[in-house]
């Protein structure tokens, strides 16, 4: 007995001002945004440097640890030294309009080709009509038309002569040509025909039939000549168009002579222009046909260049951050426009996605956002495996539509993808997605904390200085920096560590700057930093204050003085996301004659989580092991968190539960002025728990609210001493010995503090000293066992004699 409480120095680790060799942050000129991330930095350098397939990066760490900033900084430093990627264009495919062709060009040349083609078409739009307005062309056209017409007229005249000789005539009707018998220069009427003798009628009919047959053959020749006329006009148009177009295209070809795919394309353009030259006759277009007006626009549109990736002003490799990683945003899309009530598209409506823009460089994505988008993750993997970008809509991928659409040629992909996500996401993907390990071989793991030493303190101070400069805050003096360092340890609940969480640090610095300015300070001091912390707590602590109020008002029953059998103050933590606080809970236990069951009422009511239940089972095993190794355990015990109506999880109250149970077994009262936190194993060793600072402060607040008596305090696991960074008022109270904190390693130490009597050590016969706490437990257990055995005998003999 006689375990001493912790010294105030053990409750809070100060950052000595002497360890900071500067006066203010103005002296800290070196810029750094990466505190303690050596592992991550090395992984980034490796991941960016290695140029093998599958070595994409997954950057993991807690949000706010500076992942994005560091990744951007690294890439923006590296990328300008790399080669600029090519331009890519899509052009019309004259062989298959549904499959636009992709052509690669050096950066800047895509734009030039696009502009050159625009000028070419503008020139052609003038030159072709001019060529067709040329008198020579009109003459040649007339020649061809006249020749055919004359042939037709001659044939018709010959037939007309033959018809006239046989007293029949050829009549032009809107339905075609007809043969009719003639009399006196006019068609023979039906009445007159009927009046003719039969042989004459037969002759007329024969003649008409004969000439009808010849007429039919004649008209067939007309139709054939019409086709011939069309072909000859087409050929004429081609010759004229070629004359107008060829030299313009040849000039362009000479400029792109070293690009065979461009040359092939220009050749195809030339032939297409020649084949469709008549579309450029503005004056020749019949005004009654909307379809032909549209045809003109469509044909001109063929010769446009869709500069889908334009790197003319890209310096080095591109670094692209896509913050809305939907499937179309990643792989690109084919857009549609509404035209005359239908949706139409063409190669000019192909739009680039983030992968296109990042091609030849780097693509940064948020992993969580990526996984939330339908098919985005699968699509990305497919593309990374294939090494090319194929633009398809989701409907096409899933085979939901079978309407005709574009199938743009795929573009080869060379990109390094950097995913940024939480650690749990990384682990889930690693375990459940076999593709992940193939494609994202480089893990960049950000620390959330690092050890305090002189160097790390200086680096942290420099980080503070960098943020102060970047955000144009008031200068921080060394007291302020020291306080910030202490905050950093408190943030990770570890006096031997500093937090690597940049966001919370930046928030504190901004808020301290604000409060300093409010007070018209010129320099931010420790007082301003403390003020910022206090105000933060004030903003977030409404719920805590209400709950503590209910305890003070005895709505929730918590004793902070006196002694009770089977009752202990346990401590729990309530986490509200960005604010956590502790509060005491009354844990009670009952014990009676039974068959060795320790009932966890929380579990029975389905309010106990698995870890909590495990803790209760462990203490039941401890009980049996320590006190009832060779004898049956004859108790029925129950444990409950009084006035708790929600889920309870975790085993950090298992020491308190065990003490309550032992108190009930030993019938020894325990001090209510103390609270206990800690996890116990089967050997009675007290293990570390989380949230130790909040738990101590939670009980302290309740005691302080009722007035500190000097008897109050908290018992914590010794393993948690290094986590202590308590509030100033708690440390002061401990210094004044109005409040105490004990650190324990085993249950006996806890029991001695709580009961005030020695726990008692087991001798070789497995006996505990009489009068000791353990002795009383054993004694009562034995008594219960004896009672149980006697009852069992009585029941047995009663059953044999038939007595009920």
């Amino acid at each position, binding site marked *: 007995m006689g375990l001493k409480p912790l010294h105030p120095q053990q409750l809070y680790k100060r950052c000595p001002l002497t360890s900071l060799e500067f006066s203010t942050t103005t002296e800290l000129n070196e810029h750094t945004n990466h505190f303690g991330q050596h592992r991550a930095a090395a992984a980034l350098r490796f991941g960016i440097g290695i140029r093998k397939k599958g070595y994409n990066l997954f950057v993991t760490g807690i949000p706010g640890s500076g992942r994005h900033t560091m990744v951007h900084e690294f890439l923006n430093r590296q990328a300008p030294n790399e080669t600029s990627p090519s331009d890519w264009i899509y052009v019309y495919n004259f062989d298959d309009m549904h499959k636009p062709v992709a052509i690669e060009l050096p950066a800047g040349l895509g734009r030039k080709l696009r502009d050159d083609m625009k000028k070419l078409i503008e020139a052609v739009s003038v030159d072709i009509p001019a060529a067709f307005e040329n008198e020579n062309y009109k003459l040649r056209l007339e020649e061809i038309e006249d020749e055919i017409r004359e042939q037709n007229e001659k044939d018709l005249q010959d037939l007309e002569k033959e018809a006239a000789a046989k007293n029949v005539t050829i*009549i032009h*009707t*809107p339905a075609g040509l007809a043969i009719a018998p003639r009399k006196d220069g006019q068609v023979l009427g039906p009445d007159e025909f009927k009046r003719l003798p039969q042989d004459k009628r037969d002759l007329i009919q024969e003649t008409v039939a004969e000439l009808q047959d010849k*007429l*039919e053959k004649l008209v067939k020749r007309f139709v054939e000549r019409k086709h011939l006329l069309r072909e000859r006009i087409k050929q004429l148009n081609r010759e004229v168009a070629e004359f107008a177009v060829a030299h313009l295209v040849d000039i362009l070809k000479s400029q792109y002579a070293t690009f065979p795919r461009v040359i092939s394309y220009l050749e195809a353009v030339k032939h297409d222009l020649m084949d469709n030259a008549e579309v450029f006759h503005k004056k020749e*277009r019949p005004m009654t046909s909307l379809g032909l007006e549209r045809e003109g626009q469509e044909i001109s549109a063929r010769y446009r260049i869709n500069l889908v990736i334009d790197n003319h002003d890209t310096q080095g490799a591109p670094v692209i951050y896509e913050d809305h990683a939907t499937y179309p945003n990643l792989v690109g899309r084919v857009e549609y426009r509404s035209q005359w009530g239908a949706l139409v598209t063409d190669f000019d409506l192909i739009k680039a996605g983030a992968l296109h823009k990042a091609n030849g460089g780097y693509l940064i994505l948020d992993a969580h956002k990526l996984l939330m988008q339908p098919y985005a993750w699968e699509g990305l993997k497919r593309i990374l495996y294939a090494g090319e970008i194929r633009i398809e809509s989701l409907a096409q991928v899933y085979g939901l539509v079978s309407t005709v659409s574009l199938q743009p040629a795929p573009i080869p992909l060379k990109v390094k993808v950097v995913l940024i996500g939480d650690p749990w996401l990384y682990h889930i993907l690693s375990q459940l997605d076999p593709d992940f390990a193939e494609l994202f071989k480089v893990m960049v793991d950000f620390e959330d904390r690092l050890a305090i030493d002189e160097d790390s303190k200086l680096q942290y101070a420099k980080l503070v200085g960098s943020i102060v400069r970047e955000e144009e805050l008031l200068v921080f003096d060394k007291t302020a920096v020291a306080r910030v360092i202490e905050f950093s340890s408190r943030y990770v609940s570890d006096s031997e560590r500093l937090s690597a969480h940049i966001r919370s640090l930046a928030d504190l610095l901004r808020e301290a700057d604000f409060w300093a300015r409010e007070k018209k300070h010129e320099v931010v001091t420790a007082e301003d930093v403390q003020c910022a912390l206090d105000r933060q707590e004030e903003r977030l602590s409404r719920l805590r204050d209400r709950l503590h109020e209910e305890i003070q008002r005895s709505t929730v029953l918590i004793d902070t003085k006196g002694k009770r059998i089977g009752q202990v103050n346990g401590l729990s933590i309530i986490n509200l996301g960005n604010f956590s606080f502790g509060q005491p809970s009354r844990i009670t236990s009952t014990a009676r004659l039974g068959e060795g069951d320790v009932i966890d009422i929380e579990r029975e009511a389905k309010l106990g989580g698995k870890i909590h239940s495990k803790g209760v089972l462990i203490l039941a095993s401890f009980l049996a092991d320590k006190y009832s190794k060779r004898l049956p355990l004859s108790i029925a015990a129950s444990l409950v968190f009084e006035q708790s109506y929600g889920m309870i999880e975790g085993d950090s109250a298992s020491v308190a539960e065990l003490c309550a149970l032992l108190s009930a077994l030993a019938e020894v009262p325990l001090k209510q002025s103390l609270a206990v936190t800690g996890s116990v194993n089967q050997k009675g060793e007290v293990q570390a728990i989380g949230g130790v600072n909040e738990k101590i402060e939670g009980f302290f607040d309740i005691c302080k609210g009722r007035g500190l008596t000097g008897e109050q305090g908290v018992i914590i696991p010794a393993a948690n001493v290094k986590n202590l960074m308590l509030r100033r008022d708690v440390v002061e109270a401990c210094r004044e010995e109005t409040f105490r904190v004990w650190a324990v390693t085993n249950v006996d130490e806890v029991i001695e503090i709580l009961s005030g009597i020695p726990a008692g050590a087991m001798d070789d016969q497995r006996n505990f000293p009489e009068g000791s706490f353990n002795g009383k437990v054993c004694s009562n257990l034995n008594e219960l066992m004896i009672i149980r055995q006697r009852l069992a005998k009585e029941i047995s003999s009663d059953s044999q004699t038939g007595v009920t």
Partner: protein
Amino acid sequence: MIASSKSHRLLVAFDALSNDDEILETALGLIYRLRGELMGLCIEDNELSKLARLPFSHTVDLASATTKRFDEERMARLIRLSQKRIQERLRDVTHDIRWTLKSVRGRYTSSALTVENVDLYLLRRPATLTRPKTAKTATAEANPVLLLLGSVHASSVRAIDIAKEIVVHEKRQIVILQHEETPPTASVGNIENLFSNLSVPFEIRQLDYMNPNAVGKVANAVRAHLIILSADLVIDDIFIEDLCERTDRPLLYVKSSKGY
């Protein structure tokens, strides 16, 4: 609208068996510009009627070279469809214009020109094998008005007025055809001054022979929107009939005021 407030009566001669949109379009354009009354005349060609009643008549389609029976039933059906179309069209577009529609049987040109109490006659024979199709173009400037002028006559003045009305408002060019021996007269005035004052592009051509063949050639070559000829030029109906056979361009025959 032309200066004279005199109302016109325009007769439009439809070939009953052809679905001729162009003459209808031209007629509507004219009557809205000139104001007045429209009289439609569907003319069933006599010769075709006789042909249809013969028991062995067939036509050979020029587009496909297929032979089909041409009987009364088919002819009547074609005529009915054509008339119905013309009626519907007139009903749809003539909201504040008076119009009538009649049918006659006879020769196209003479049937039209014998109708009395009409001052303007619009005729057009659609293209056939021997009457080539002249395509209209997208811009009005490419289809000028062709005005045939002779010596002094009241109908010349009216023809000139009508031509001016059309070219100014429709922004068309005008090609004026005259016989090379036609003297300028004081009453007509200087043709050049007349049209240059209007700031309208115009051209004067003088022909050796003012006959249907020559006029038809010019009409086809310039792709005339409308051929306007006044009664002073025309000797008889045969001129008009012949001209109609040479070109598929619409022809507006302007009678003198005495004829109306």
